Structure formats: C-alpha cells, structure tokens
C-alpha cells in the first residue's frame, strides 16, 4: 500500500496551504491539521499514521512546532512493512536530531533493522544511523556496521562505510576497528563503494594517527592505482560528467593522497608521477576539470612534491587567475594564499593580476584578493602596492572601505621605512576614508608626528590643506586639529619647509578658522569637539592677536548640553581670563610622546593608567590627566592628555602654577572624598601639597597655632544659604539667593576671624537625616586689597565625614565688597554622642604674597 496514493489528503493539505494568501490563513490551516493529527495520534490510528507523519514533516518544514509527532516516528519504525518504516525513518531524520532523549528508544529498532534480511530495510537503517547517530548509538551499533562493511551488496557497503564516518566522528576511539575494513574497501570496483571507502579513510586519518600510518603503509599503492584507472579509463557513460570519468572520485582520492603524503617523503615520491599526469592531462575548459586541477594543485602543495611539480601547480593557478570565470579566480586566489608559504617568489609573479582582483565587483573575490595582497607585501614592493590600494580606496564600495582601510593602514605601518612616506600615506588614507580609520591607527600617527620634529611643520601644513577638502572625515579632522593646536605656529610661519612642498600662506586667523569649523560642524562628535577646544586654548597663547576671538568661541560652549564640552570651556575660559601669567606655560607644546611605550600598549596590554592620578574626576579625562606632576609622562593616555600640565614640574616653575594646581585640586578633590576615600586623608593630601608651595611665606597676620576664640556673636549679615551650582570657577557670588529663614534651625556662627578674613557658617539639616549637616561657608575679605587664589580647606575628626563642594570663586574682593561661598556636607557618624569639630586652613595671595591661615572651629551649635 502506498501511503500517498491511497489518500490524497497530503496533497490536499499542501494545496490548501499553498492557497493561503496571508500568513494568518496559513497558520489557521496548519492549526487545524495539527489538531486532526493529534486526535489521530491519541486514537492510535494505525491506517493513517504514515500519512499524518508525512503531513507533519511538511508542517515542520514550514517552521511550525511538531514535537508531538516524535513518538509516531518510533512507532512507524517499529512496524513491519517497508513503506511504514521508510516514512518513519524519514520522519526520524527530519523531526529529531541526535540530542533528543527519544532517540534512545530507537536504538533497539535500528539494531533489529541492521540485522534484517531485507537489504532495503538494512539500507534505511544505515541511512538513518548515518544522519542522526549520537555517541551512545555509535558505541552500541558499531559492531553491526562493521559487520555490514564485509557484506556483499555494494549498496549496503557504501552506506555502511559512510555510517562508519559518522561513528568515527562521534567516537574517535572506535577508529581502529574500522582500519582494516576501510583498507579493503579500496580494492573494490564499484565506484560508490570506492568513493565511500576513500572518504572513510580520509576521516580515519583525521581521527587517529595510527590509522594514518596504517593506511599510508597499506593503501598508497592502491590509491595511485585507482587514480590511474579513473584518469586513464575510456569513456564510461555511467560516471561521465562533461567528458571526465567520475570527477568526484578523482577529487576524493586526491584529497586522501594529500593526507597520506603530508610530511612523508616516501609516499609523496610515489605519488609524484600520477599527480603530474593528472595536472597536465586534465582538461581545463570545464568546471569539473578545473575542480580536479584545483584539488590536484592543493595536493601538490600539501605533500612533499618535487619542485618541478610545484612550479607546474603554480602555473595552473596562474592560468586560473586569468580565467574569466569568477569561481575559478576565487579558488585560485584561495589557493595562492596557501601557496605563498611554499613558494612566495612564484606567487609574486602574479601580483598585478591579484591587484586587479582587489578591484573586482564581487565581494568574495575582493576579500580573498585583499588578504592575498596583504600577504604579498614586502619591503621591496610596499610603495607601489600601497599606492595602488590607496588609489583604489577613492573609488571602492562603501562596505569594502573598512576592510581596505584597515589593511592599508597595517601595511603602511608594518613596512614603512621612512617617516615622511608613512605620514604621507596616512594622510592620504585619512582624507579618503578617515571615517573608517580605527582609533589606535590615528593615535599611532600622532605619536609618530610628535617624534619627528623635522616633519611637524610639513605635517601640520599638509593636514591643514587636507582639512580644507575633507572635513567630513572624522579622524582626519582629529589629527589635523591636534596638530594645529600643537604646531600651529609652524603652519603660519612655514617652519621646516620641505623641498617637495608647495609654498602656502596661512594667517593666524585662518588656522583658528579651521579649528572653529571643526568645533562647530554638525557632524563632529564629542571627541573631535573636545579636541578642538583644546587646540583653541593652545592657539590662544601662540596667536596673541586672535586670543579675543578664541575667548569668544570658547565662551559660546559654556552652555553646551554636553557636560564634557561645557566643563572644558568653563575651565579654559577661566584659564584665559584669569591666569594669563601661567597660561603660556600651561599650554606649552606636549613633550615628545613615548613611541615605544605607545606601541607596547597597543600591542595588547590594556594596563590601567599608570600616571599618578591624584585627582579623581572620573568623568573628565582632560581635567584628571593634566594633574600628574610630570614624574611620569603618562604614556597610557598620551593623546587625551591634551592640556599637558606634565611640564609644570613643581620645583622648576614659580609658585604661581602651584597655586593653580592647588586651585584645580580644590575642585577635584572634594569629589574624591565622595567616592569613598576617608576625608582626613584627603585633607592631609591637600595639606601636603600646599606645604610645597607656600611654606616659606608665613608671615601673615594669622597665628597658625592659636585657636581663635572667636566671637560667638551671631552673624548679623544674612548668609547666603544656597550653594552655587553652576559657577565652578567663575566668581559670581552675587547670584546667591536670599536666606530662607524658615529653614534656619541653627544660628549662623562666625567660624573664624582674623585681620584679613572672616568666615561665617550657616547650617541646614534635613529632618530625616539628623547626621547630615549642610554647611554654607561665606568668606569675607576684611583687608583693603583683593585676595586671589583663595583656597579653603577643612579637616574633621575620624568619626565625621566631610564633603567639600567647589568654591564659588577663588578671588575675594577687598573691603567686604563681595564674598566667596562654599558648601560643605558633614556627616557625623556619632551624632548625638560627640559634637562636631573642624580644623580649617585658608591659603591665598595677598599683595602678591602667599599667605596661609589656620584655625579650629569648636563653636558649632549643639546638636550637630
């Protein structure tokens, strides 16, 4: 009985499904069918089981779940008739795979069928086993399969041989059982058995070196004979494909020969003749012929062939390469890549053709060719090759540019003999495909430029020129902006002009224009903009006439929504406005970047920044990295370290920059205490730093050891309560809001008073957090001259935690004409048991003299 002729319902179902116009309709039909099949399963319907399973397979192919049919497969397999078994095995192979538990149940049926007297049923079982065999099944059924290998029927033999492949792949230990039978298979005449046998031998060689040895000894001769027979055989219609007898057998035999001849001179020697024969006699005007040639070449390359044979092989590849069929060219490129290790010189001869392939329209060919070119490059040919590739970069596909750029960059880096050439090539790549250049590549370029003093002028001019046309290439813009910032004056003054250069006149404002464009371009990303800001800062000291304009540009970004940019512009603005005297030393050119260290770092170690990061502003790399005090040139982040305070070695420079450093620290450090560092340490650190710069000048009016018995009179002036939020560095104390009396639970105290300075503390507490007190400190200048570089520091006992917010300003106008405010957050962990206490220290410049005042505050209102 044929399961499909009796009921047309499988056809009906397929028709119904095909007639569906929408996915929803299709789902409905499938659901209905599935329901019917489930019902049939639960009724244990014998007659239609096979038909239902066939339907399920179709449904499965459409992508619907069919788990419920798995048991039906097993039942069908267990039934006696061939048609039922057949559909059952088919279902088994489609609906299940080796990982399912259900499969365990089928082992027994398989075993029975493998021993069946009907050869067709044995065939079915072998087929199923070959397709879904698991490791357990392999162990259980290996003896049966092995026995079948010795049988007489070629159909069974070839199936058993392929089954054995699967078994060996699953359980390599079983390989030795199959060595003998596999070798005897090679003596067969039937092509199906032969090909299966050859494949089995190939897999045996992969699985087990003993098997490789055994087969090498026993089969090499036989293989050569087989190959001789098939390649010399007259026309055999049964196996003929395009005029060649059984190319598949050819190919399999050649492959096995490759495995046997690898690193074995004797067997290679034995194969030489026949390989030469195949290589010369096979016709190459058809795909099949080429397939054989291709395999033959691969074998020649793989074994210990004579040099004459190798030349022959490379020549075949050369012919392939000039073939018009893309498939052939593709395999030729593939093969040349392997051949290059064997005979690089011979491959070099085909260089021009390969280079043409890089420009092919087919992505597969391009990719192969590019990889091959990459392998072909050496010191001798790098210049023409790089030129070709860069020229092609201009016209290549968008999606290919990434690969191409990466390869060009690594070629240029690897083989550059002179810096000028390297820089030139990189500039070309940057201006053509800057958006595809990886960060580490342009970082390396900057390192090289910084190490080549005689080429810096040339670089900055070339970049400036390139910038005019290629603003859309992000990494070009970055490198250019960096170089203009660093070497701007070389651009304007034409320093170090090389002979090859065209003369060019760039004014200072042109240079600033270029950076400004980069800063304001819509598509520039954050890094580019930040780099532009720094470049501007650097230029402002070098191009004095433009400094007003730069100030304006910087100021515009004070309101930027990007925190990074806002912070930078505010900081830079403050440097420009109020620190003219130190600015030039601040924005000095960066020291030569450490090439070796950078390369070492690039080589893979992603070590944490080893520079002494005393400040810990995690978000702003620029602000944090400029603090390392020059002991370590920070190699880990040389390129972000743009502000470069590294040169401000404390001993070398006048004390002013030190104060500025402190100033910066004053901003930076309070944050560090919030990140968990003990507040006392923080303060100590501050003290230490301070003592470097200010120790000699302590003849101020303050007596540092005297605890001021300060007046307890409450401050009459209303103290500003609100902490300044925005003005981190800018002295704008006037925006303090009026006091909110209803919140003032505690009286305002005068914490400190000397002949020049008065400090008032006002307090605020949130009722739900009694331990935390917010203190607003208001500083007033009582003297007749302005105090600059004002810094306030505080230290508290161990049981108290202190958090200092940045001060509103560092300049305190004379005669009480203005105040500085600074807020402190104090957490008293022993609230209610111990009273609050604090030591304070104020450093400032008074009539251009450094002053230091200290004091202890013990008059905190009770209950803090």
């Amino acid at each position, binding site marked *: 009985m044929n399961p499909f002729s009796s009921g047309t319902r499988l056809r009906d179902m397929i028709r119904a499904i095909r007639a569906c116009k929408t996915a929803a309709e299709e789902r409905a039909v499938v659901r209905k069918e599935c329901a019917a099949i489930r019902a049939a399963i639960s009724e244990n319907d014998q007659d239609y089981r096979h038909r239902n399973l066939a339907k399920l397979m179709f449904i499965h192919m459409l992508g619907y779940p069919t788990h419920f049919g798995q048991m039906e497969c097993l039942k069908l397999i267990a039934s006696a008739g061939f048609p039922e078994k057949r559909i059952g095995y088919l279902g088994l192979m489609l609906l299940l795979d080796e990982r399912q538990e259900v499969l365990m149940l089928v082992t027994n049926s398989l075993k029975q069928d493998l021993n069946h007297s009907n050869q067709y049923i044995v065939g079915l079982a072998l087929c199923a086993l070959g*397709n879904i065999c698991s490791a357990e099944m392999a162990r259980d059924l290996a003896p049966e399969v092995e026995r079948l290998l010795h049988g007489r029927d070629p159909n069974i033999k070839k199936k058993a041989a392929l089954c054995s492949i699967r078994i060996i792949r699953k359980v390599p230990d079983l390989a030795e059982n199959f060595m003998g039978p596999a070798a005897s298979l090679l003596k067969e005449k039937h092509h199906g058995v032969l090909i*299966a046998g050859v494949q089995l031998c190939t897999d045996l060689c992969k699985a087990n070196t003993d098997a490789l040895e055994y087969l090498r000894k026993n089969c090499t001769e036989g293989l050569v004979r087989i190959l001789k027979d098939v390649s010399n055989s007259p026309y055999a219609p049964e196996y003929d494909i395009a005029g060649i007898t059984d190319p598949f057998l050819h190919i399999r035999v050649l492959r096995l020969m490759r495995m046997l001849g690898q690193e074995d001179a004797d067997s290679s020697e034995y194969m030489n003749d026949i390989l030469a024969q195949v290589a010369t006699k096979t016709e190459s005007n058809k795909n*099949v012929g080429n397939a054989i040639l*291709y395999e033959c070449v691969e074998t020649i390359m793989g074994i210990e062939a004579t040099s004459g044979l190798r030349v022959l092989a490379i020549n075949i590849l050369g012919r392939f390469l000039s073939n018009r069929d*893309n498939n052939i060219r593709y395999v030729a490129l593939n093969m040349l890549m392997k051949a290059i290790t064997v005979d690089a010189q011979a491959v070099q001869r085909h260089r021009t053709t390969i280079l043409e392939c890089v420009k092919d329209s087919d992505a597969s060919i391009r990719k192969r060719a590019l990889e091959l070119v990459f392998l072909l490059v050496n010191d001798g040919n790098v210049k023409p090759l790089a030129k070709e590739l860069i020229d092609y970069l201009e016209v290549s596909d968008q999606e290919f540019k990434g690969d191409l750029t990466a390869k060009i960059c690594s070629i240029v880096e690897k083989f550059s003999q002179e810096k000028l050439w390297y820089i030139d090539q990189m500039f070309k790549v940057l201006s053509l495909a800057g958006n595809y250049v990886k960060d580490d590549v342009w970082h390396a370029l900057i390192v090289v430029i910084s190490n080549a003093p005689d080429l810096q002028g040339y670089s900055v001019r070339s970049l400036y020129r390139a910038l005019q046309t290629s603003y859309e290439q992000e990494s070009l813009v970055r490198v250019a902006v960096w170089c203009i910032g660093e070497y701007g004056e070389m651009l304007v003054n034409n320093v170090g002009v090389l002979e090859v250069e065209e003369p060019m006149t760039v004014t200072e404002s042109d240079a600033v224009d270029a950076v400004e464009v980069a800063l304001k371009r819509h598509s520039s990303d954050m890094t580019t903009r930040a780099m532009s800001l720094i470049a501007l800062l650097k230029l402002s000291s070098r191009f004095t006439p433009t400094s007003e304009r730069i100030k304006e540009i910087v100021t515009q970004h004070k309101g930027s929504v990007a925190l990074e940019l806002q912070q930078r512009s505010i900081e830079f603005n403050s440097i420009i406005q109020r620190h003219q005297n130190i600015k030039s030393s601040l924005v000095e050119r960066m020291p030569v970047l450490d090439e070796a260290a950078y390369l070492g770092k690039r080589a893979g170690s992603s070590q944490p920044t080893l520079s002494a990061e005393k400040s810990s502003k995690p978000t702003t790399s620029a602000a944090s990295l400029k603090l390392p005090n020059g002991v370590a040139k920070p190699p880990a982040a040389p390129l972000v370290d743009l502000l470069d305070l590294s040169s401000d070695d404390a001993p070398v420079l006048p004390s002013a920059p030190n104060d500025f450093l402190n100033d910066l620290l004053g901003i930076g450090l309070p944050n560090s205490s919030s990140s968990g560092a003990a507040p006392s340490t923080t303060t100590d650190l501050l003290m230490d730093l301070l003592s470097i710069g200010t120790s000699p000048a302590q003849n101020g009016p303050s007596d540092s050891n005297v605890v001021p018995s300060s007046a307890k009179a409450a401050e009459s002036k209303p103290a500003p309560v609100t902490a300044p939020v925005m003005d981190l560095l800018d002295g704008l104390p006037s925006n303090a809001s009026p006091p909110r009396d209803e919140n003032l639970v505690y009286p305002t105290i005068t914490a400190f008073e000397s002949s020049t300075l008065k400090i008032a503390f006002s307090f605020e507490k949130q009722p739900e957090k009694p331990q935390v007190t917010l203190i607003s400190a208001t500083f007033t200048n009582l003297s007749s001259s302005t105090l600059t570089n004002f810094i306030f520091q505080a230290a508290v006992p161990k049981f108290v935690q202190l958090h200092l917010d940045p001060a509103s300003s560092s300049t305190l106008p004379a005669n009480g004409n203005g105040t500085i405010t600074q807020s402190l957050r104090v957490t008293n962990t022993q609230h209610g048991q111990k009273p609050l206490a604090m030591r304070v220290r104020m450093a400032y410049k008074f009539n251009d003299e450094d002053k230091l005042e200290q004091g202890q505050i013990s008059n905190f209102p009770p209950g803090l």
Partner: protein
Amino acid sequence: ILLQNRQGKTRLAKYYVPLEDSEKHKVEYEVHRLVVNRDPKFTNFVEFRTHKVIYRRYAGLFFSMCVDITDNELAYLECIHLFVEILDHFFSNVCELDLVFNFHKVYLILDEFILAGELQETSKRAITERMAELEKLE
C-alpha cells in the same frame, strides 16, 4: 543542504549537524539573504560564519550547500548540478511544484546521494535505478 526559492521559502532543508529549530530558521534566513542579492556574474561562493556557502541558482530555486572552508568549492558546485540532474531525471523535467508536492521523495533521493554529509553515489544511473527499485516496493 538548503533548497530555497527566491522568496526565501524553504523547500528542502537537510542538516548533517545538530541545530536547534530556531537556529535552523536563522541560518535559512541568513543564507537566503546572503545568496539572493548576488549578481549572477559573481562567484557562487560566499563566506558564511565559519563556513562557506556554495550556491547555485536554477530558475527560481537556490540550491545552497554549507561546507567547510577547506573543501573544494568547484566540486560541490558540480555536486549540486549532479543532484539537480538526478531530480530532473526522476521527475522528468523537474519544477518547483514537483519538489513541493513530492518533498518526501526529494528527501529520499538526497539520502541516496549524500549520507552523513558525504557523497554516497556519483552515478546518476545508479541512483535512479535504486529509486525505481524502492518505488516498486511501495
């Protein structure tokens, strides 16, 4: 081995390595996307994950085989052609609908042609004769 039509409907899918169903669908989808847009002048080989897809288009049907990166591409291309010839012979002038309605037979032919991911029989005549014998049994 995958057989897909131009719309990406799978007509036959045979896996010789175990894969989850969802993974299979993903593979089918990705292979289709990879193959369908290629220019006929291009190579019949595309790299796919860690393997290579060898494909060939017959009218609206794509025959794709995913093979190891080291395998002989040209041979597999020929292999696909042989399979199509066998189908053609068996169904006498095969078309997509034949494959849809007789999908189980296509599977059976495939099982006679390739087993455990390796070629089993390279003679067209041997396979068609074998199929005829099997048909007689039913």
